[in-house]
């Protein structure tokens, strides 16, 4: 019997990738050996319902020529064991390769990985930037069999998405704000800005929020004046959001405001007092002298 790859519930599988994985793949591609065109490696992650979440990856050295392909299985197993010690809940969910197309040898590698995991996902990360676009595609494989003979393996594309967790968003935002600096030197590897001043980012956040609100109000204006057909779902959503803004009586608001400010000031005062105390103790040397 030909081994068919069972897809969960037909082809409703989708893949979500963490940006860490993509960055690691790019980095590995930059570091590849001289005679290699592409880099392959294993993907680790978790499977929840029909969504495969790829959280981590590592590179596996391989050698491929037109006739055969060799994968360093030892390395793959060792790295997997090491990773299991750190994150025991992650399992092998597939493998990745850089490059823009599928190769013939991919079927063999896919076969190898299907022994490791139930339905391995093959991810192709286009590092050659074909069409001026950075594309990440995911495939899962299906064997085409005629009776008992396995003819070929077909790669079926499945939707692939990049997710940015809440926490990573902070780090990712930082990398992006650095990149938005006009830097015409494309050949040199430019260094991004250092972690900018904290107060500045608060102003930036407010700016962005103000932008959003301006866009929303523009939309509402244009709908009201009849230029754009209104979408009732959006209208309801906007109304709900506005209803969330608490409508406080002036005295209430003043009271809350004063309390908040007083709390913050008191805390600042206390911490400054403590700091002054410690500094004084140090200067006078009383921190180390017996308290007579």
């Amino acid at each position: 019997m030909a081994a068919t790859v069972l897809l969960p519930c037909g082809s409703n599988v989708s893949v979500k990738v963490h940006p860490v994985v993509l960055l690691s793949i790019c980095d590995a591609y930059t570091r590849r050996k001289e005679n290699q065109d592409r880099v392959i490696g294993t993907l680790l992650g978790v499977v929840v319902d029909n969504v495969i979440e790829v959280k981590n990856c590592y590179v596996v050295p391989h050698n491929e020529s037109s006739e055969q392909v060799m994968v360093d299985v030892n390395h793959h197993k060792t790295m997997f064991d090491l990773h299991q010690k750190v994150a025991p809940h992650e399992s092998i969910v597939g493998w990745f390769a850089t490059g823009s197309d599928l190769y013939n040898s991919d079927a063999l590698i896919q076969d190898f990985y299907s022994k490791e995991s139930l339905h391995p996902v093959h991810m192709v990360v286009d590092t050659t930037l074909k069409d001026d676009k950075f594309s990440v595609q995911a495939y899962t494989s299906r064997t085409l069999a005629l009776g008992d003979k396995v003819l070929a393996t077909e790669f079926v594309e499945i939707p692939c998405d990049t997710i940015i967790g809440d926490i990573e968003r902070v780090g990712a935002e930082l990398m992006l704000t650095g990149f938005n600096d006009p830097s015409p030197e494309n050949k040199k590897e430019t260094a991004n800005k250092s972690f900018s001043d904290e107060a500045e980012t608060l102003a930036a956040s407010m700016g962005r929020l103000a932008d959003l609100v301006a866009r929303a109000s523009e939309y509402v204006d244009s709908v009201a004046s009849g230029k754009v057909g209104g979408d009732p779902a959006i209208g309801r959503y906007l109304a709900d959001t506005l209803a969330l803004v608490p409508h406080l009586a002036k005295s209430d608001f003043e009271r809350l405001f004063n309390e908040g400010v007083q709390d913050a000031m008191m805390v600042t005062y206390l911490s400054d007092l403590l700091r002054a105390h410690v500094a004084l103790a140090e200067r006078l040397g009383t921190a180390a002298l017996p308290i007579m």
Partner: protein
Amino acid sequence: MAAPLEGGALRPHKELVKTVQLEGQVLLKIIQHCSEALPQLVTGQLLGLDVGQQLEVTDCFAFPAAVAEDDVEAESAGANYQLEMMRCLREVNVDNNTVGWYQSANMGTFQTLELIETFINYHENIKKCICIIYDPQRSSRGNLALKAIRLKESFIELSKEQKLTLKGFREANLSWRDIFVELPVKVRNSNLVQALVADLMPAPTATQADVDRLNMSVAPFLERNIQSLVESVDDIVQEQQKVTMYHKSVARQQQAYAAWLQKRRQENTQRLQDNLEPLPEEDPTLFKPIPEPSMLDNYLVTNQIATYCDQINFAASEAIQKLFMMEGMQKAGL
């Protein structure tokens, strides 16, 4: 350039690390590992190169969660893990140089004795090593709480000579501020990665991070900070008491010694009268010198207090800014 130091040994003037440059993927890996492992605190290794005054961190990997440290087997397992990982990474052309380690911290406190010991251990082999501290809880408020620290050179020398007492610190002209040095961190990405990042996040509109940052509730964070601050003050009072005890016991010892010496002298005059050998006036075994308590704990706690105060100040000033903005919006009739 050699600079003569106390003890007469000539030591070459090493270039100190002044800045740290992280690759984007290292940043994301650290964030992912530390936030997923909450509430447990985790550590990992940093790999990279040092280029003059800048330390470039190009890769990192996580350590398995620490098991009981008394187990010799667990320690060798940890060392094995490190070796295996480094070997595998070498096969794929990753920089094989250890340049330090990272750890997650709770409420920004990292000033512990273990940290200093680890630093000194690392320092034996690698001269330029840093530690990256990441605070996952503070980052959930919208700011990236990551900093790189290293020990100050003078402090390392002082601890090597084991002179961590008050006198030692005074002589070397160090205060509690001079234990750690914070280094500025930069993030750098290769061109390919920059293209990727640009593709992933095209236009920066208001994101979840903005919403987190603009969150008005600052009270719980302040409460926790103040609680830890109060604990630190308790610690420092304890340390002070230790010093007091030391001084008192030294004074007591002196008194006892003086009394004993007098008795000895009386005995000796007696024996001289009896034409016997006088007993020695010193008796080292009876009065062992009491070791002076190390000032290191004291200084570490002071550092902690300083960190808490900084955090509180920052959070409070942020809160005030947000409140005033709210007031402005309220006045404008929004």
